[in-house]
């Protein structure tokens, strides 16, 4: 029982993080039907910025995160204008090249500026070994609670922005039908930039939430993003709520499967990095059998 609960708590923790980045992916996909392969490294860059403000400038953690979010958000908007907009969104190869190229550049700059060695990331939540709530023998860390709360607040914020503001309405209109959006006078380019701004800021938040738990190094988000891809795909690539649910499902499956598999004879070879394999299988299975995921609306192109 205790083990099971612990698995659940781990799943909650990971799920919250996957969710934040998954929502970033979904935002861009909703508006542009593009997959941003550079999302991970944009988030990584934001995490590094946070670390730089917090350790080198001595700012408290949360203001560092917020400033980093804004800076990366602006970066995202610039990226949309300079690197993405010149290309026809239905020609996918250039987009793949550009986003991968951008990812490589970001990783390189991070490594050059801040070094390749692992850094310790300041904790956004109380994270001493004693900071937990004991439930049924398992430990629910404050960190997990904090991450969950942060995720919920962020989802709420996104929801409010999209549904209660004018620019949010424009974003939803553009996500629905671009031509009609032009016909009501919406400036599509600026709206897309706003979407990228949000996505980049969210990515940074996700990076900042998880950096404490892994190590801060240039490739740390790249290793994790596949889980968010799986979450977003499972949820339906254009559904924000779906991404959240997908994130928790993926995290739970991983947590329980990998955790328990180690107990089952014959499956004990499943080390923790088989979580990656699970993510891959999820992506494959969803796109094969139900490409619009659990809650998505847009039909993934078939022949």
């Amino acid at each position, binding site marked *: 029982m205790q083990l099971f609960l612990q698995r659940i708590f781990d799943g909650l923790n990971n799920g919250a993080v996957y969710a934040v980045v998954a929502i970033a992916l979904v935002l861009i996909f909703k508006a542009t039907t593009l997959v941003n392969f550079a999302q991970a490294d944009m988030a990584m860059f934001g995490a590094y910025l946070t670390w730089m403000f917090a350790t080198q400038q001595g700012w408290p953690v949360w203001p560092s995160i917020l400033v980093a979010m804004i800076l990366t958000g602006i970066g995202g908007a610039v990226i949309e204008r300079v690197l993405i907009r010149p290309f026809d969104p239905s020609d996918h190869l250039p987009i793949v090249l550009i986003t991968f190229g951008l990812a490589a550049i970001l990783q390189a700059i991070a490594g050059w500026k801040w070094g390749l060695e692992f850094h310790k990331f300041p904790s956004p939540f109380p994270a001493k070994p004693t900071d937990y709530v004991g439930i049924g023998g398992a430990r629910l860390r404050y960190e997990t609670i904090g991450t969950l709360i942060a995720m919920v607040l962020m989802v709420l914020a996104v929801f409010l922005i999209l549904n209660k503001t004018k620019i949010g309405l424009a974003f939803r209109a553009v996500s629905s039908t671009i031509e009609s959006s032009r016909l009501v006078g919406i400036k599509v380019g600026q709206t897309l930039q706003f979407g990228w701004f949000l996505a980049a800021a969210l990515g940074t938040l996700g990076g900042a939430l998880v950096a404490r738990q892994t190590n801060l190094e240039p490739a740390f988000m790249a290793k994790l993003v596949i889980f968010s891809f799986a979450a977003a795909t499972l949820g339906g690539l254009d559904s924000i709520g779906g991404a959240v649910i997908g994130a928790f499902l993926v995290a739970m499956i991983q947590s329980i499967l990998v955790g328990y598999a180690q107990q089952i004879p014959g499956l004990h070879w499943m080390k923790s990095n088989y979580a*990656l394999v699970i993510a891959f299988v999820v992506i494959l299975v969803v796109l094969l059998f139900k490409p619009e995921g659990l809650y998505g609306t847009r039909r993934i192109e078939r022949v």
Partner: protein
Amino acid sequence: MSGESSSTQRRSSLLTVREGSSQHRTFQVVGWGIFALCLLLVPILLPNFRVSQFGQAIAFAVAILGINLAVGYAGLLSIGNIAFMGTGAYITMILVNDYRWDYWMTFPVALFVCFLFGVLVGLPALKIRGLYLALVTFSLAYTFPILLKIDQWGISRRTGGDNGRTIREVLRPPSWARSLPTISGRNPQEQQATYQYWCFFIVAFLCFLLVRNLMKSRPGRAIIATRDNQIGAAVSGVNLNLYKVVTFGLSAAVTGIGGSLLAINLASVGPSSFDARYAILTLMGLVIGGVATLHGSWVGGVLLVFLQDIVTRIKFTAIPFFKIEKGSPLTQAVFGLILILVAFFAPGGVMSVAKKIKHKFVRVVPNPPLATDRVEPAPVQSPAPEVLSGAR
């Protein structure tokens, strides 16, 4: 002699040549002659490790050719092909090490297994397109190294897990080969490298020939048709699904051969040569070389190997706080930058740029020249509308 310039030619080249004419043939012969000469000079003039590098370039060229088949010709954004390269390499390594097979005997096996593997991966591709296919296949590239390290079922024992394994015996030229030109009379390492070089070249040549003939054949043109116009192709009776799956299989098979070649070249095989980073590098090689062009594949292979070499040597110390030195992580940024620049300025790769340059000098005109003096339709002026009385 030179073909007449029709009104359709916007920029006149220096020289216009009829396809199939003796002039054209001369150009072709000269072109191939130069190519053969360069080929010959490599083992003769260059030091050993360079020759070996060229061998590696050939291996990658074949792998890129395979990727080109899927991505370039068939338009299937399969960017996880590196997994097939790894499969070929590991198969060769395991058969040679554990079962004492001869190197060349492993090739048919690698071909076959990779083909099957490719068909398997191709089945999901029937339903998924574009970026989503890229997503799935990229995840495959991500997962491949992990699969190699599975402790169960003796897998990691065979694959050598994290560190891979070296191949017990290096490819040695047989005695009859030792008396061949460019090989005879040299020291054993040179002989080995040169022999390997020529063998690789022959294998690569066969692969390129195969793909070229495939693309010119009816099924090949059908594959290209499916890339450009899915609906049109489907309507004209092309069995899309079959072609897609077979293309995937062939693409995987050719890439697998490239992997086997790489195994021979490196004389060892490890998961780090076939991970996500190499997936992107090979894709980059393909795109820089030129998607959907035969020559682009080998150009890409050569560039890939030598760019890595060059990039690690870049020293840029002019701007004090922006030093790029050997081993600096910033050198990786160069690759990213190249990817972006290619996407912006030369999406057709080196080959498209080369074509443009070539057209400035020589233009090959199909024979006989088409009777197409295109006539611009005279803009039709509409007559003033008939105005019914009183209305205006």
